[in-house]
């Protein structure tokens, strides 16, 4: 990822509430678990 990409992603995360940030993480984890189970997320 480029530095600009990092900055954009960080600014987007910072625009969210802490709870919404946690929801982003939870969504990532859920997708990874589904992929690990061999099913589409």
């Amino acid at each position: 990822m480029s530095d600009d990409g990092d900055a954009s992603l960080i600014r987007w995360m910072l625009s969210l509430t802490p709870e919404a940030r946690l929801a982003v993480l939870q969504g990532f984890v859920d997708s990874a678990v589904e992929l690990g189970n061999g099913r589409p997320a």
Partner: protein
Amino acid sequence: MVAPPRFKDALEILAKHRVDLVVVGGVAAVLNGAPIATFDLDVVPARSQENLDRLAAALNDLEARYRDRSGRDLRPETAGLAGDGHHLLLTRCGPLDVLGQIGSGRCYEDLLPDAVAISVGSATVRVLGLSALIRTKEEAGREKDLAVLGILRRTLQESAKK
């Protein structure tokens, strides 16, 4: 089968049992706005007897077991939680690491001044602030800590602009 992480549920159960703790690690980084991924919840609890009793009740509620390579069914006990060590657990809400101290020996009381209260669902939890999180990861100096330092520092820089 290992239960997948459910961070909000785990935090709400710990809060329901009124466990005094500071959330650290990857979840703390995310709550502070850092775009990183993690699969476990790291917490540093207060180690007063009253709080350890509440923590033990919460861990029982969470059906916590040690991540034991030989497959033994080991449950955390109050006395064992009183030390400085790390308790790497599996719960019905995913992996939970209960840490006696982090960085260069920083315990709950050391971290508390740098923690901020954040609402998550029905819970209000204390979360280690980004500057302190960076400091503890610098102190720990492990490869996995150093790997995220760049993104944490960038997040701190960006948050200072807001």
